[in-house]
């Protein structure tokens, strides 16, 4: 019985947890409520994932209303994977957040923080699960509004401007998406994605569809922070509470990338998007410039969070470049990198959070000899940093190997070469920090205090859980590659 209602539960549980948090008000109680809800969400996502993997697509009519009238949830391998990824990362970071938030957010506002977190999770999961184009926008707004709030919780005044800047950019992006969906509705009279996918081929030369396509492209590029529309991301990541950064880095942009995939591959179809509309002519240069330039920019950052933020934009570039290949192997590489990068970047931000917790700043040149003070945190940073570089046996290697061989298959040698070039930049920006942590003697005005003081276990354990997962996915990359390849097949195969 309950197994049939899983798609609804996926959304309803976190959505109900939010008002409960507001009612409970006491920080610990709110955290427990949020955590329990999140664990349930992970279980739901996991069982749906298994179900989809064995039995195929789940179609769920919300409230019993059939598709054109009501909203349909549509779960195939692609979004089952996304649901699992998002809920898992959120759950791990939520465990981690308790200590970190205690230190950085005023106690009186904790209940709002957890409520916003739950709403944001609801929005992200909703964007993944829904099969209705307008519903995507609704959930996008839920997640965005709560995200602006979460970012503004940062204890730095700059968090407010960062949040406001994101609000402006995010609203532009969201309205573009809304306009796009509106035009699609005008041209086809459908909002359900399956219907849209059927009707667009008849209307594909209509001006409304062309306009919709362009609005959606720009809107989604803003939301997923594709270079050069990534301006909001660095400030938002740097100034929001670190737990929020870790959460967003692993989920928010990834979900937008998923929506982009859904629109361009399932609804418009790869032949239309990448064939007739020449999407790769627009996206590929942006993606390649993104991963080369922003890896380069990351080298010169002195704030760890900002450095990782730029690195995130670069990684999004890899993913977009992989999408542009529009082939089975390219999509597989892109999806596997969504998973892999989500995990390592979250782990990296968590380790930076541990540093912030004990040292009080993330100014990398002042982290001399941090290794002697926080060895476990530094090891975590190094391990996930190696993953970012793409050293063999880490997840980064699996992603980059797939991406490069997919682009060679297509004959895009330059892309492969530039991916490698940007990996070399990654060696530089990670290596620079590691060198300071390991070797440099204190000589800065604000040196790290002497003596061993590791971050609390409540922060270390979730971080190492993620690193364990990343090592597992790195050593047996065929597991994630198999999932990603099924997801890619689901996307390329279109709606059944």
């Amino acid at each position, binding site marked *: 019985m309950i197994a049939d209602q899983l798609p609804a539960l996926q959304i309803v549980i976190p959505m109900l947890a939010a008002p409960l948090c507001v009612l409970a008000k006491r920080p610990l109680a709110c955290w427990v409520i949020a955590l329990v809800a999140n664990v349930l969400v992970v279980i739901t996502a996991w069982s749906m994932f298994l179900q989809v993997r064995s039995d195929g697509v789940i179609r769920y009519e919300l409230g019993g209303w059939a598709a054109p009238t009501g909203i349909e949830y549509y779960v195939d391998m692609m979004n089952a994977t996304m649901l699992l990824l998002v809920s898992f990362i959120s759950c791990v970071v939520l465990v981690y957040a308790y200590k970190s938030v205690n230190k950085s957010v005023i106690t009186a506002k904790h209940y709002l923080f957890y409520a916003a977190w739950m709403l944001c999770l609801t929005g992200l999961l909703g964007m993944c699960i829904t099969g209705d184009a307008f519903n995507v926008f609704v959930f996008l707004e839920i997640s965005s509004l709560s995200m602006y709030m979460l970012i503004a919780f940062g204890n730095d005044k700059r968090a407010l401007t960062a949040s406001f800047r994101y609000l402006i950019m995010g609203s532009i992006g969201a309205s573009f998406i809304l306009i796009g969906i509106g035009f699609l509705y005008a041209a086809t009279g459908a909002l359900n994605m399956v219907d849209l996918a059927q009707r667009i081929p008849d209307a594909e030369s209509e001006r409304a569809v062309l306009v919709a396509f362009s609005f959606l492209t720009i809107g989604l590029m803003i939301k997923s922070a594709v270079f050069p529309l990534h301006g909001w991301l660095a400030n938002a990541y740097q100034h929001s509470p670190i737990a929020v950064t870790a959460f967003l880095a692993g989920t928010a942009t990834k979900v937008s990338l998923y929506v982009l995939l859904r629109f361009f591959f399932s609804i418009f179809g790869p032949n239309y998007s990448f064939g007739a509309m020449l999407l790769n002519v627009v996206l590929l240069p942006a993606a390649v410039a993104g991963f080369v330039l922003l890896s380069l920019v990351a080298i010169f950052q002195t704030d760890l969070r900002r450095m990782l933020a730029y690195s995130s934009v670069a990684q999004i570039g890899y993913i977009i470049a992989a999408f542009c290949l529009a082939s089975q192997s390219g999509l597989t590489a892109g999806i596997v990198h969504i998973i892999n990068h989500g995990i390592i970047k979250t782990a990296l931000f968590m380790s930076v959070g541990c540093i912030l917790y004990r040292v009080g700043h993330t100014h990398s040149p002042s982290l001399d000899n941090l290794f002697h003070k926080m060895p476990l945190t530094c090891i975590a940073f190094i391990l996930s940093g190696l993953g970012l570089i*793409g050293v063999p046996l880490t997840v980064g290697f699996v992603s980059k*190997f797939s991406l490069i061989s997919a682009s*060679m298959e297509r004959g895009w040698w330059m892309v*492969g070469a530039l991916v490698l070039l940007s990996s070399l930049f990654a060696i530089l920006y990670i290596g620079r920090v590691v*060198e300071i942590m390991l*070797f440099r003697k204190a000589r800065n005005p604000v040196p790290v205090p002497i003596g061993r003081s590791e971050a609390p276990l409540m922060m270390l354990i979730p971080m190492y859980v993620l690193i364990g997962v990343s090592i597992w996915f*790195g050593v047996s990359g*065929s597991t994630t590659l198999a999932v990603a390849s099924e997801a890619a097949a689901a996307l390329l195969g279109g709606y059944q």
Partner: protein
Amino acid sequence: MNPLWTLVPPLLVIPFIIYFGERRRNLREASIIVAGLALLGINDRIYSSVLSGQVVESGELSILANFSLRLSAEPMGVLFGLLASFLWIVTTVYSIGYMRGHDEKNQTRFYCCFALAIACVMGAAYADNLLTLFVAYEAITLSTFPLVTHAGNDASRKAGRLYLLLLMCGSIGLFLPAVIWIATAAGTLDFVAGGILADAGLSKGAVGILLALCVFGVGKAAVMPMHRWLPAAMVAPTPVSALLHAVAVVKTGVFTILKVVTYTFGIDMISTTGVASYILPFVAFTVVASSLIAFTKDNLKARLAYSTISQLSYIVMAALLATTMSVTGGALHIVMHAFGKITLFFCAGAIMVSLHKTQISDLDGMGRRMPITMICFFIGALGIIGLPPASGVWSKLLIAGGSLEAGNAIWIGVLMLSTLLNIAYLLPIPLRAFFKPPKEPQPEGWTEAPFPSLWAITVTATACVLLFFFPQPLINLLGLIQWR
């Protein structure tokens, strides 16, 4: 015997090293020696199974959709594994004397990283496919990084930066694209007798570019211009320079090239397409130029480092000549050079510990204070030069023969020129130690290195001589290589 066992002793000993730590350092070092003996035993078992023609391989771990990690034993790998495990024991004994005599800090970390590096070397030696070899190759770079930067001062940090940058940039920027290219073209990365690229339909130019990517991308082989890291890495403690930067790490580089030439390209493909003739001049240049640079170095370890670069290029040259004789000679030279060069480095370290001298010009008359060390240095130098009664002569003969077989005698000229240069920059060191009067009055009597170090030096020097008289087992083993 499953080759995975070779990873067990060096990895298993790490917790013991950490547990015993600085407080019970005798136990710590004893545990490493036990692990070393166990590893040697395992390698010996593998050796005898390979001799008797059994298939020695492990299960596989699939890290990418079509490619997996897998270990298996083949003659070159067995030889390399035996070499590294034997010298690990000797070097550990040597380190006991050296590290304590030199009051090095963080010895526990040192031994841990050392054991880790040895485990990675085993992975490289028994790699069954190019992916495994690549993974082990990268792991060696990372695990030896803390050893290079061991001293923690500015010089070692700079050296570490150069080390990581050149090796990683080479491997990720050049070698990895080659690996991926091979994977896309051939659909497999396995090491197969006769190579996998014959049917891949690559043009001659593509084969040439691939080969160049491999030769220059494998920075550990130190072919110019990728050689700069090696002299810089000499800031590491001498046991590291001795085992890693004369044997394990650099030999992994040339070993990789030998394996790629034999089992990925196949020697026939290289000799029929003739692409190697575009790369050989670079290698020959390295042989001669680094010998010349070695001349100018007054620092003993720096001179030895440049000598290593030149000797490594012999092996690369042997690989690129791509005849059965030259590749056999190259593989043999891995062993022969290893014993000679490790002896020289051990001696350099002993001199540093006992006399606190690092410059060659300060060694006048020191033969009287360290006669055993200096005699061993002499033997090691003979081994490197390739003069009887020391080991290097056989491998040089084979490489020279291979050059004739390949129909190009010019490379013999390069070898001989470099041999002459070897004589000129190595032999004066023991000669001036024995025959020149000391610059300052010296105290009477011997000041040899601590006993463990002295033992290690004599073992490797003796091995140099023994290998001259009994090279046959090694040649027999290499005779089992399947070329086609």
